[in-house]
């Protein structure tokens, strides 16, 4: 990334074509102006990018190699100690970190299947032709424009075990109305996953809808002539046709669920016990509330490496299989 700061030191006069550049300069530069013009256009963004993305990306590693307490003047270099501590069951942050990783893992596993499948069903429903289609699409997408603060606060109230309206409605329907939605497991996980589905279903559905629009109608017509059942059409036309979109949805949804923070911060407050304290909650609590930034930075890099590996595995597992 340091390369982005380097301005051309030798005049790119055009006398020496850039290595590998097969197109002639004059034909492609298109826009008239001095050779500094592109950098002038780029500079406001690059200034921000270098300051708040490139430098912090490296600074974070530097911090993680120190016993970096924001409130203390001395920040001694400790090498890889903060990373080693995460593997040492005797260290103080070992338990918090792996408890957070476990909670994040549980949330990913229980939420992602619903966040991938239910929006697909909704998208297939919305892909039919019917009056008011745009209206219903907008209605189902609406919760997504709300922030996690609004969503968390409202569902904490609606899911309250004693006076919440979810239990109120359930008992009005003759169902058990005393479920401890936010204060007992497994209900707390079920609540967090369900609220996340309610909040974000429209996002993935809209992405699927764009993918569905690209599947040629003739494929379905041909299948109908051959007497295909709806399930066969889904299995042999829709899902293969959506493969690139499906990969995108699975990878981004796993990452989004692994970043879960606000829902358990507001709805379950990490409870019952510490069971819904996610990795992000542990990292922000340690780094930005207790200001022990060295350890928290090490945790965030370990989590990032985990997520990168999982993304690679997802792309690999969902790739086109040539048999």
């Amino acid at each position, binding site marked *: 990334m340091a*390369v*982005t700061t*380097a301005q*051309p030191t030798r005049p*790119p006069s055009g006398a020496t074509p*850039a290595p590998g550049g097969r197109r002639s*300069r004059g034909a*492609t530069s298109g*826009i*008239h102006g001095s050779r500094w*013009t*592109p950098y002038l*256009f*780029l500079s406001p*963004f*690059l200034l921000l990018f270098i300051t708040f*993305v490139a430098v*912090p*990306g490296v600074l*974070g590693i530097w*911090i993680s190699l120190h016993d970096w307490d*924001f409130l203390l003047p001395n920040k001694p270099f400790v090498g890889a100690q903060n990373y080693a501590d995460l593997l040492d069951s005797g260290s103080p942050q070992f338990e918090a970190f792996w408890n957070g990783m476990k909670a994040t893992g549980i949330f990913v596993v229980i939420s992602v299947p619903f966040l991938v499948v239910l929006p697909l069903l*909704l998208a297939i429903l919305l892909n039919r032709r*019917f009056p008011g289609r745009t209206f*219903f699409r907008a*209605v189902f*997408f*609406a*919760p997504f*424009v709300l*922030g996690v*603060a*609004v969503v*968390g*606060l*409202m569902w*904490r*109230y609606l899911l309250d075990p004693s*006076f919440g*309206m979810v239990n*109120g409605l359930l*008992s009005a329907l003759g169902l058990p*109305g005393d479920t401890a939605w936010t204060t007992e497991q497994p209900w707390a996980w079920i609540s967090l996953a369900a609220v996340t589905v*309610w909040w974000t279903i429209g996002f993935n559905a*809209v*992405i699927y809808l*764009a*993918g569905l629009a690209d599947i040629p109608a003739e494929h379905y017509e041909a299948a109908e002539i051959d007497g295909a059942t709806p399930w066969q059409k889904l299995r042999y036309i829709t899902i293969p046709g959506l493969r690139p*979109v499906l990969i*995108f949805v699975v990878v981004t949804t796993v990452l989004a669920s*692994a970043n879960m923070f*606000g829902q358990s911060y507001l709805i379950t407050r990490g409870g019952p016990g510490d069971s819904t304290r996610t990795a992000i909650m542990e*990292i922000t609590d340690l780094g*930005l509330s207790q200001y022990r*930034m060295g350890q928290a*930075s090490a945790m*965030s890099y370990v989590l*990032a490496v985990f*997520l990168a590996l999982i*993304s690679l595995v997802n792309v690999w597992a969902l790739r086109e299989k040539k048999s």
Partner: protein
Amino acid sequence: MKRRNGPLFWLGMGVLSVIFIGPLLLVLLTAFKSQSESRTVPPTYFPSEWSLRAFDVLFFQDAASPVLRWFLNSMLAATMHAALVLVVCSLAGYALARMEFRFKKAIFGAIILTLFVPGFIFLMPNFLLLDKLGWLDQIWALVVPGAAGAFGVFFMRQFFMGLPRELEESARLDGAGPFRTWWSIVLPNARPALVTLGVLSYLANWNDFIWPIYVLFSPERLTLPAGLSRLQGAYTIDYPVVMAGAMLAAIPVLALYVFVQRYVIEGVASSGVKG
């Protein structure tokens, strides 16, 4: 043609609409209840007695929770953030779409690479940078760092690459410089992309939660989401007040969404197809 949508289909649509809109209406109704009615078992759905107490408390009674101030802070931060994103991303996106220069591939590659880096990596180092800049507990902490994200540049670049070059060529023949061409020819033709990116940036900033709760400290500097989460931290939660506050945070974005939902939805849809 063959597929007809029977009553079962419309029943399904109705049930789904109730699921997605109903909770918002229940919460809105709760804001008009007394505190005791918000905790009755079984719960009431419509207030037995309509009361504006929650709004009175929210706006006028609690000096430690200046909700109107939070509302204005949120609005100001989101507006400035969206404006900053539009300026820097439409400039940089245009250079990356139309101009040739050294290190173009390296710069674009570095920007795209960060689309795949999770945001939490930047929490601690950016907190330290803001401290050095003197921006902690300042509105700049909300406005500026988020504008360095790769999405906006990528989005604008893709849009500019799809514009026909002819307009720019003729502007050049008329003697317009690159900046003038960008301002008076390219940007007016990019209005749909600018609206989409502006609205998405505004929504993301208005809704941001994890960043403002850690970089803002003074009660009068908070954004609405950060402030509301502190209201909820009280010993017994005054739910009508918290729900009124949640609606205050929800209604502006829902209203904005009603007017520009096409842009929001198409912006989201394009992220999947192109990404």
